[in-house]
């Protein structure tokens, strides 16, 4: 609970808030950029046009003054005013004492204190106050020239644009916040889902799974991946639980037996011989426990897959012949026949694998077959190619394994009902299965009618390239 609370909302630590802030920032910056560009392109452009027109005007008037003195300047100005169709030009020429000499402004505005600087001055036109952009220029003999343009229209446009942009920015802010909140909400919803599951798992409920939205988006993909992982984890946990239960149960029996024997000998044994016998039996029990541990360790070692690094080419034919030879004597001793069938002895299947493990796996299968065969039974060890696989089958005529139990037969410590009273640890087939999987193959248990047919299917090594065809007789000669 406390942990969940602490995690709930560290403000700056919330990914949702961070994403939202980044989104708002990016959105805001692009909006500001757009507004700036709009402003520069409309209002700014007009301003620059006015200023350049005034500058051009000023240069040409100065040239007139140079050419024809004051009278020509005055005439030019009057003519420009007279022809000023859009009625926006303002001119004024004053003498050194600021008395107007020519132009259409009543007097020199006080605001325009310095020459060569832009001013925005309110002027009255036909009783209406409007705004003019103007600049003063120095003329020879102490005369001064003021040129201006009425920019009232431009000012109105500017106000309009500014107002529009203001609204636009307001809308963008609202949209930005809304978008940021939406992103945050979406993220939090998606993550809360995962987080809820993780909390449930951490709390011990392994059955919980991340809910899918069904949209097939990235979050669904993540959820599926997490669910797959959880499935695998719970399978592994089940396996571990099952194995530890089995270990607890299957080891307790021989340990209890050894303990009882020793205790009984301690209190009841009469004479050295009885004591010795009891200790000997107890030692055998301990050896059996040790064998179970060895087998378990070996299976985990195989399942860990580390031995794959030591894989080498294994010729199957001599391997099977040796095993056959080793077990035949023991089989005959029990009145059983052990046959080795190789479909095509000429084509010896070769595997890439671990010779020792393959020997052990097959020995386990043969051990089982010998153990469960009725007297007079026949055991066959056969090998055949099946496409890319090599199949090695050990078939007996024993009680077999009921179909319903076959899938459990490779679990650690599995003992068939019929095998309850046969010695064994129930780890043999687990090891065979582990070896098969290490080699990228599988173990198949089938009905031999009667009996069990255990087939170890292993991928054959890629067939060796065909031997090169005999060279034409002429070739060696020409080479020489």
């Amino acid at each position, binding site marked *: 609970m406390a942990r969940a609370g602490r995690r709930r909302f560290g403000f700056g630590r919330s990914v949702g808030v961070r994403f939202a802030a980044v989104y708002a920032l990016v959105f805001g910056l692009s909006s*500001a950029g757009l507004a700036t560009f709009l402003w520069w392109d409309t209002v700014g452009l007009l301003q620059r046009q006015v200023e350049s027109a005034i500058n051009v005007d000023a240069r040409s008037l100065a040239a007139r003054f140079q050419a024809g003195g004051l009278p020509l300047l005055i005439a030019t100005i009057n003519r420009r005013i007279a022809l000023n169709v859009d009625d926006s030009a303002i001119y004024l020429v004053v003498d050194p004492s600021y008395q107007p000499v020519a132009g259409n402004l009543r007097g020199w505005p006080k605001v325009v204190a310095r020459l060569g600087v832009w001013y925005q001055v309110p002027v009255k036109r036909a009783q209406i106050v409007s705004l003019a952009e103007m600049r003063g220029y120095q003329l020879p003999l102490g005369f001064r020239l003021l040129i201006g343009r009425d920019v009232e229209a431009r000012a109105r446009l500017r106000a309009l644009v500014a107002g529009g942009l203001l609204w636009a920015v307001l809308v963008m802010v609202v949209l930005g916040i809304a978008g940021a909140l939406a992103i945050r909400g979406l993220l939090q919803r998606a993550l809360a889902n995962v987080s809820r599951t993780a909390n449930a798992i951490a709390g011990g409920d392994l059955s919980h799974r991340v809910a899918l939205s069904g949209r097939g988006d990235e979050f669904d993909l993540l959820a599926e991946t997490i669910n797959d992982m959880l499935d695998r984890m719970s399978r592994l946990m089940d396996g571990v639980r099952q194995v530890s239960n089995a270990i607890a149960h299957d080891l307790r029996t021989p340990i209890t037996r050894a303990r009882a024997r020793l205790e009984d000998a301690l209190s009841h044994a009469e004479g050295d011989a009885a004591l010795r016998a009891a200790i000997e039996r107890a030692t055998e029990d301990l050896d059996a426990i040790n064998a179970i541990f060895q087998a378990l360790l070996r299976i985990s070692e195989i399942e860990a897959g580390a031995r794959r690094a030591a894989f080498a080419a294994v010729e199957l034919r001599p391997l099977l012949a040796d095993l056959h030879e080793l077990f035949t004597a023991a089989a005959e001793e029990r009145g059983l026949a052990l046959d080795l069938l190789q479909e095509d002895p000429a084509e010896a299947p070769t595997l890439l694998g671990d010779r020792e493990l393959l020997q052990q796996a097959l020995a386990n299968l043969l051990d089982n077959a010998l153990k469960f065969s009725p007297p007079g039974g026949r055991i066959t060890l056969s090998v055949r190619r099946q496409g890319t696989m090599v199949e090695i089958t050990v078939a007996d005529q024993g009680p077999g394994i009921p179909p319903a139990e076959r899938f459990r037969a490779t679990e650690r410590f599995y003992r068939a009902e019929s095998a309850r009273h046969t010695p064994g640890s129930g780890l043999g087939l687990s090891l065979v299965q582990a070896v098969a999987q290490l080699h990228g193959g599988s173990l198949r248990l089938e009905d031999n009618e009667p009996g069990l047919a255990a087939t170890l299917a292993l991928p054959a090594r890629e067939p060796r390239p065909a031997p090169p065809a005999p060279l034409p007789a002429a070739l060696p000669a020409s080479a020489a």
Partner: protein
Amino acid sequence: MTRVPLALAMLAATLAFAAAAGSVGRAAGGGGADPLAVTSDTTHYCHSLAAKVVAARPPGGATTAADALAAAGRRLCRQGDVLGGILRLRHALLLELHPADP
């Protein structure tokens, strides 16, 4: 809870932008003294402009368009629509001085 500072920041940015836009419009607004009057929009100027149109009339013959505009200008000035009159007179003058490009 989380949205308050975010919203505040956005609002502040907006206000700053608005203030900037407004201040540009009002910058260098002049010193509060009475605005100076422009003299080229008075009845007096209208009459002087009408005289100029007559003086600029080419000796060859009258351009009927300029004459009509000038007459309309004079009439508007008389009726008190000084700006309209001046506009027409200026067009008339333009037509007389630059007949090629009206």
